[in-house]
């Protein structure tokens, strides 16, 4: 999958062709996104959230893990602080994802960059940085992939809120959560540059597992990512001396 236009060394682009490539890269993960969306619609109805409100939440928040977490905090009076802290903690990993896209935003107008970031999520980000290694320079890749996911996520929430039948346990038996892990794993293969990545990735994996065991839920991506990045940086510094 080579970019249609000649990749420019010092600038990024945002084109329809890029959107299309990004959208196609999402095909494998749309089924699990759909099923989780349906599950969210059902779960939301289950605790008394109206269908239109659950759908609005999917459309505006567009972050599955945070949306599921908030269902536990859907109480009167509204537990504002836990609710906002949970939302931030679960989504804080986006900050790292966005930071790593710096080169792919270079030279683009701010409205395009900040518009594209509205659709940033783990899956289309992973697809984009794997494609970047193959020469992709089009931020549309993120937008197209994000739009596909957004459409799937919102329509699935609507369907789940209207219909019923599935629960989260069923989702697990259908091994759909494994599709997402397998998807991330394949992008990891494309991202590997060689032995230079061994140490940072090892540290990232260990730190992420440590965070799973020792910290509250949902910090492992942040902790692992930062630890791996710093490990690479420190190693390079020590080599230079």
């Amino acid at each position, binding site marked *: 999958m080579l970019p249609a236009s000649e990749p420019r060394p010092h600038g990024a682009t945002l084109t329809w062709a890029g959107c299309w490539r990004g959208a196609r890269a999402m095909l*494998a993960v749309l089924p699990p996104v759909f099923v989780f969306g349906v599950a969210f619609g059902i779960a939301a109805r289950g605790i008394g959230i109206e269908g239109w*409100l659950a759908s609005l*939440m999917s459309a505006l*928040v*567009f*972050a599955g893990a945070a949306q599921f977490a*908030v269902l536990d905090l*859907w109480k*009167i009076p*509204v537990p504002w602080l836990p*609710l*906002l802290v949970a*939302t*931030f903690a679960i*989504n*804080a*990993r*986006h*900050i*790292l*994802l*966005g*930071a*790593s896209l*710096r*080169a792919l935003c270079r030279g683009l107008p701010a409205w395009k*960059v900040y518009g594209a*970031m509205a659709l940033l999520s783990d899956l289309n980000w992973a697809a984009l940085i794997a494609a970047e290694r193959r020469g992709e320079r089009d931020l549309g890749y993120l937008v197209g992939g994000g739009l596909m996911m957004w459409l799937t996520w919102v329509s699935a929430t609507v369907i789940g809120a209207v219909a019923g039948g599935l629960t989260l346990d069923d989702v697990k038996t259908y*091994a759909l959560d*494994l*599709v*997402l*892990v*397998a998807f*991330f*794993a*394949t992008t*990891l*293969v*494309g*991202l*590997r540059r060689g032995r230079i990545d061994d140490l*940072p*990735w090892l540290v*990232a*994996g260990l*730190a*992420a*597992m440590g965070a799973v065991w020792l910290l509250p839920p949902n910090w*492992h991506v942040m*902790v*692992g*990512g930062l630890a*791996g*990045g*710093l*490990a*690479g*940086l420190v190693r*390079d510094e020590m080599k230079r001396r």
Partner: protein
Amino acid sequence: MNITDSLLVVFAMALVTYATRAGGIFLVGFVPMSTRAEAFLRYLAGSVLVALVVPATVRGGPEGYVAVGVAILGTLVLRKALPAIALGILAAALWRASMGAS
């Protein structure tokens, strides 16, 4: 929860979430461009992905290891993500079926 509170919660969540999405590229704009910063961001991308994959694989148990292992091997051999993911899931399903039968 009444409609006003519900809508406020949804809008607040949307705002916080968008802040995390836009925050990365915003904050990194304050860091002067250097080879060191570039290298860090490149390590960061791979490390974030590892931090996503490793705990999820471990949590998946034996099926997680089979799915991820086969998907990685499949990508290396086939050079295509989609069939590699399919093979990984198939292998995990077969593994589960064979374990369930015994």
